[in-house]
């Protein structure tokens, strides 16, 4: 697509994006909720979105599917108050719906498999029902305008202007960064066009390309995005990305995961941890240079040494010193 057409498409999407924004009041409500059993909190939602990402990645779905799924999820959560115990069902429904739109039919994982791998507690029919509810509440239309839409367009525009654009700006990296941002609910408050532009600028700064920067400014002017708004989100994006790539790993909460193994493997798992029946026999060092005292038992297992329990071993007074030195081959 030539530059002109791209810009036009950009405009069209820009005008439409407001339709697909989650209700800000709803999002704020979630953000302000503390950990509670009756309401969804930000932490809750973020953890669930990360699970959705794990599933997306595992089943080989595209980033597009993920972004769409998160969009559906946030829009639904901002509108409807649900209990945390249903969050799992809602999120997987959104994923499945998004996958049906984006992915080829042959690549679609069956709902049963989604549920099994995701270790979910609900059934396939629950999933089906939830999908209908979500679709109904969101007046679900296949194509949603998301940050990825814009990111894609920006990338194409940048490439069309620079010949070596492909080497400098990697769409995959941008997608990964977008994914990192979407795992935090605060970024759902941003307008997709602004979020995408922030990400673009962030990457352009990283690769230090003057040409690209010009293009980014051009886009900003074209869409009439204010400096203030752009700055706000750029800061947040920068902070999020630096957190994301920091070496401090989040401790994997593997207690949440179930490890199911076959019976035979389970039987053999701890067969080695047998307590040895025979008490330890300490080695005696008979080196000439070492004194008698240093030859004390090296007790490691805390069990009674044979020699002490039976009295008559080499250490006692019975065994004359000069003879002890002669019999040195222990």
């Amino acid at each position, binding site marked *: 697509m030539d530059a002109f057409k791209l810009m036009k498409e950009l405009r069209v999407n820009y005008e439409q994006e407001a339709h697909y924004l989650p209700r800000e009041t709803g999002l704020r409500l979630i953000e302000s909720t503390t950990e509670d059993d009756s309401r969804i909190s930000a932490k809750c939602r973020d953890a669930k979105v990360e699970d959705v990402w794990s599933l997306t*990645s595992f089943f080989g779905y595209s980033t597009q599917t993920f972004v769409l799924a998160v969009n559906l999820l946030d829009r639904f959560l901002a509108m409807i108050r649900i209990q945390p115990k249903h969050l799992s069902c809602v999120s997987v429904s959104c994923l499945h719906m998004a996958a049906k739109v984006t992915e080829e039919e042959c690549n679609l994982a069956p709902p049963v498999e989604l549920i099994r*791998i995701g*270790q979910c507690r609900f059934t396939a029919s629950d999933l089906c029902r939830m999908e209908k509810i979500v679709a109904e509440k969101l007046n679900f239309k296949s194509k949603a305008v998301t940050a990825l839409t814009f990111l894609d367009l920006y990338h194409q525009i940048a490439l069309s202007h620079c010949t070596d654009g492909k080497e400098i700006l990697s769409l995959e990296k941008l997608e990964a960064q977008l994914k990192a941002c979407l795992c935090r609910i605060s970024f759902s408050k941003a307008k997709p066009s602004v979020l995408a532009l922030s990400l673009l600028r962030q990457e352009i700064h990283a690769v230090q390309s003057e040409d690209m920067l010009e293009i980014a400014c051009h886009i900003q002017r074209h869409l009439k995005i204010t400096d203030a708004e752009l700055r706000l989100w750029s800061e947040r994006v920068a902070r999020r990305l630096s957190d994301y790539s920091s070496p401090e790993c989040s401790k*994997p909460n593997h207690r949440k995961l179930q490890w199911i193994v076959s019976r035979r493997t389970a039987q053999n798992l701890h067969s080695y941890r047998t307590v*040895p029946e025979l008490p330890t026999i300490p080695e005696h060092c008979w080196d000439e240079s070492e004194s008698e005292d240093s030859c004390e038992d090296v007790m490691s297992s805390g069990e009674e040494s044979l020699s002490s329990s039976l009295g008559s071993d080499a250490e006692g007074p019975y065994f004359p010193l000069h003879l002890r030195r002669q019999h040195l*081959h222990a």
Partner: protein
Amino acid sequence: MSAISASEKVDGFTRKSMRKAQKQRKSQGSSQYRTQSAPVELSPLPQLKDAPSTEQQELFTQKLQQCCMLFDFMDSVTDLKSKEIKRATLNELVDYVSTNRGVLVETTYPEITTMICTNIFRTLPPSDNPDFDPEEDEPTLEASWPHVQLVYEFLLRFLENPDFQPSIAKRHIDQKFVLQLLELFDSEDPRERDFLKTILHRIYGKFLGLRAFIRKQINNIFLRFIYETEHFNGVAELLEILGSIINGFALPLKAEHKQFLMKVLIPLHTAKALALFHAQLAYCVVQFLEKDPTLTEPVIRGLLKFWPKTCSQKEVMFLGEIEEILDVIEPTQFKKIQEPLFKQISKCVANPHFQVAERALYFWNNEYILSLIEENIDKVLPIMFGSLYRISKEHWNPTIVALVYNVLKTLMEMNCTLFDELTSSYKADRQREKKKEQERDELWKELDELRLSSSALVQNNSHGLPGVQNNNNNNNSNNNDTQDKSAEAAAVTSENKDPDDSVAANESSPCAK
């Protein structure tokens, strides 16, 4: 038990009916025999507890001598009365030595050891079943166990008696005694081996002068087992004794012990019958590593060298042992072996045998191992990633697929950016591979088409082709076929130079990570 003929087998396995018939007969064997042909009857002696203390010594000796008479247990009807007298006497002797003090006078030692030697030291009978499979078949038990058991019991009580003096005993319990004792470990009877184990353990503990000899002999037994015979029934018991010895090693470890670990214990893992003694062997190895962590690297490298390639049951055992080693490993040592180890683990998780894959994946349920991986995630994740991702799509077993999800999710949470990078480069690699496959297919198609066109060419123009002369120095006269084929080949090779170059160009660009 005679060997099973082929007609009694189905698919190489013995028919169930045959196996059942075999099991009915409780197999017993013995090589004990009586030297005298005339039946000798034992005359019962008075009870020790009834004898006055002045006569007890003499009576004790008499009873010991009486017990030197051997009886034939393969014959279940002869000498029943005498057998019973001997049994009762042995019982009495066991009690006498266990409960009384001041019994072990110097003069009794030779009598005691003589009685013991006479009763237990014998050449073991050859196995009735040449294909004896310790896991499947019933072992051949010692027929004279009713007596032999008591003799062993007596020997044990003798050694454990508070008045026992190794300095006196060592005249009789010497190298020859120990050597004969060790040979008995090859007995098929597990009860006998159990006694021997405890007895040898006590002897090792008490006779410091014999320790080096015992270790050397065990060394020899194992080496013979590994490299020559692959047969010895007492490996597990000997390893159990060794475990308690290793546990007591003084630090720093002597070179002799380290040699033993590397030259004997590690190669012992290659034995076919590993399943019979693996638990004890693994325990010994882990004990060594707890004593001296610097041995970790050679041990793991040794295990990797002997990693089973065709026996899945063994592979599962090896994985279990690796987990035990990792449970006690020091982080600095871990860093040294993480790369070769995880390369092997990544092969294991992709193993089509579900038990191997399962066991390897289950490592990620071990908190300590997880913490080690986390610390070294930048080295470990790239090694594991490709394998895990591939089997998440390809493995036939759904349980494995679910476990892979757990592992991938755990790894993802450890380092998101690295995971993202690996995902995208993996996908890029797959794309490249697919493209190469397509190109290869197209190349073959082209070749097919060229073949048809160049065979037409050859028929018209048989001498002018450049390649023919080079290929056909020797085959001028008869082989028109060869000429045609090589001409085709020459034509084809010259035609296809360009596509080859372009493929080579693709291959030369490295896969960036």
